[in-house]
């Protein structure tokens, strides 16, 4: 398939500011391909991001875009969507933005099952602020605020969002771009809260400090660590160690928030 993505970018803002080899660029490009594939009306797309390197994405994408406050993209998006349910609202967040400061909004968005597509670019670090650890920095890894090695555990974001009530949960990698496009496409078309963790790489602020100092090496790590969900379920616990599943991890038909609210309006207005 040939993708026409130039139209989805603000050409005068390119090249983007992300570092050489930063996975965020690959992920954003493939989000654009998925939008192309899903054939959405670009005038009805809104991209909301928080603050972080990941948050820069909103500035590059040629839709209605909001670069909000750190961690709060989902509640902004919730207002945008509920106020006008015909909009396709995409949230782009980071592992710090979405899972640290923004964790509560993530789970409450999932609980409401409001029709947002949330893409969390997980590069396992606070990239923008130069490399402090995030809730997704592996235990034992190095970051500027873990001079003696990270003792924090990580979230399993797929488990967390599933437990929260989200109805579409997937994980992809900057490495496996074809899978990423499929996942994005499905997430965009899913009616309900779609959560997609996109594993990214930050060679500058994670790689360098952790002896995987090039983007290429980091992509190789993604390749080695990821297992398609179909295979994953057949692995032993031993085999799963150090690996993670990718693909659509969970999907459910479930009543969506703005639709339910519209039903209230319709019934109240009918009565009146």
């Amino acid at each position, binding site marked *: 398939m040939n993708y026409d993505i130039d139209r989805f970018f603000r050409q005068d803002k390119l090249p983007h500011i992300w570092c050489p080899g930063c996975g965020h660029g690959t992920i954003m490009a493939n989000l654009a391909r998925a939008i192309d594939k899903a054939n959405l009306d670009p005038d009805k797309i809104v991209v909301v991001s928080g603050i972080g390197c990941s948050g820069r994405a909103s500035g590059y994408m040629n839709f209605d*875009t909001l670069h909000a406050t750190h961690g709060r993209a989902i509640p902004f998006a919730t*207002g945008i969507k509920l106020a006008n349910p015909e909009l396709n609202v995409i949230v782009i967040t980071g592992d710090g933005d979405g899972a640290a400061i923004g964790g509560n909004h993530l789970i409450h968005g999932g609980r409401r099952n409001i029709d947002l597509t949330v893409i969390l670019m997980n590069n396992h670090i606070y990239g923008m602020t130069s490399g402090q650890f995030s809730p997704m920095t592996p235990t034992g890894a190095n970051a500027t605020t873990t001079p003696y090695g990270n003792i924090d555990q990580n979230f399993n974001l797929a488990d967390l969002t599933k437990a929260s009530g989200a109805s579409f949960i997937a994980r992809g990698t900057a490495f496996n771009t074809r899978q990423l496009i499929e996942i994005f496409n499905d997430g965009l078309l899913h009616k309900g809260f779609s959560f997609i963790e996109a594993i990214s790489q930050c060679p500058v602020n994670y790689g360098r400090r952790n002896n995987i100092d090039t983007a290429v090496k980091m992509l190789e790590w993604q390749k080695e660590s990821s297992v398609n969900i179909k295979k994953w379920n057949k692995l032993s616990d031993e085999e799963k160690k150090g690996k993670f599943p990718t693909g659509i991890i969970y999907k459910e038909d479930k009543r969506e928030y703005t639709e339910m609210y519209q039903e209230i309006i319709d019934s109240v207005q009918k009565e009146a």
Partner: protein
Amino acid sequence: MTNKAKLLQGDEAVVEGAIAAGARFFAGYPITPASEIAEGLAEKLPIHGGKFIQMEDELASMACIIGASLSGLKSITATSGPGFSLKQENLGLGMMIEAPCVVVNVQRVGPSTGLPTSPSQGDVMQAKWGTHGDHPVIALAPSSVEETFELTVKAFNFAERFRTPVILLLDEIVGHMREKVVLPKQDDIEIWDRKKPEVSSEDFNPYEETEDHIPPMPAYGEGYRYHTTGLFHDKTGFPRGTNEDAKKLMDRLMAKIEENMDIISLYEKDIRDDDEVVVLAYGSTMRSAINAVNRARNEGIKAGWIKLKTLWPFPEELIKNLSKDVNSIIVPELNRGQLIKEVKEHVFGNADVRGINKYDGTLIKPDEILDLIREVK
């Protein structure tokens, strides 16, 4: 023909005022003494095709109404001190990106959990300075149920007209007090809607410098596809990171308010040419002030009053001029002396400025003001 009289609480008047002004979105989180506003709008909004959502906290509530505003709806949230503190970061974003919306704070005694059910005017300075950095603020404070309706409508009008969040500062007394009011008929209410762009999307700059400093604002989904950020930005909406852009934007944000003082600065006064003492008040405290002034006049004291309905921007010129005409200005407040600081700053030594301050959850009684009038007269 007029409307029928109603018995309304201040909180209920906010609900009525919001609906009348065209509000169609509420997001909030319950808190005493503001919960009645949420409860009222939960019921009323869907009747008018509007939306109500209870969010997980106040930060999310503030974010949510800004989002709804960007989608084109007039939106509102309501809270009290603790929640107002939590809203500050996103309120600052709203000011920076110029998102029209209304934030109600029904004040109770702080700091912290304080006295949750008692009246206060303790968040007046926070309304001006609560979020980091310089920023433009409009804050209105009603003194009765009727005025609450009036100023709620005005808050939406100012928000839409000047493209900025507007803060409505009730105190618990006004919020929970019931009064008999006759609301104006919908047709008699002046309503402002945000300016929409008249150019095509190609020629559109979301933060265009216009003559009135207020850039037209399309709704999301109308095809303008523009960018908005809390970083300092130029007219295109994008940050260039230059110092000039920062100054230019900040100056414009301030100018759109400062240059419209005559519209925004609402007040009433009853000062006779030879009055020597003036009581300046706002909110529920105003009512004791008027009572005291009337009684003072009965005693032959040359006293007058001035009621600020708009606290921010502060009417600097008004006070400067007033200070030249009178000997004393008395400022009763349900706090340790907040707005009085502005008064003192602007009288510049021309008049004696005296505060009466209660911050224990009780009201300032008319007698207390009257006593001071007698003393300074």
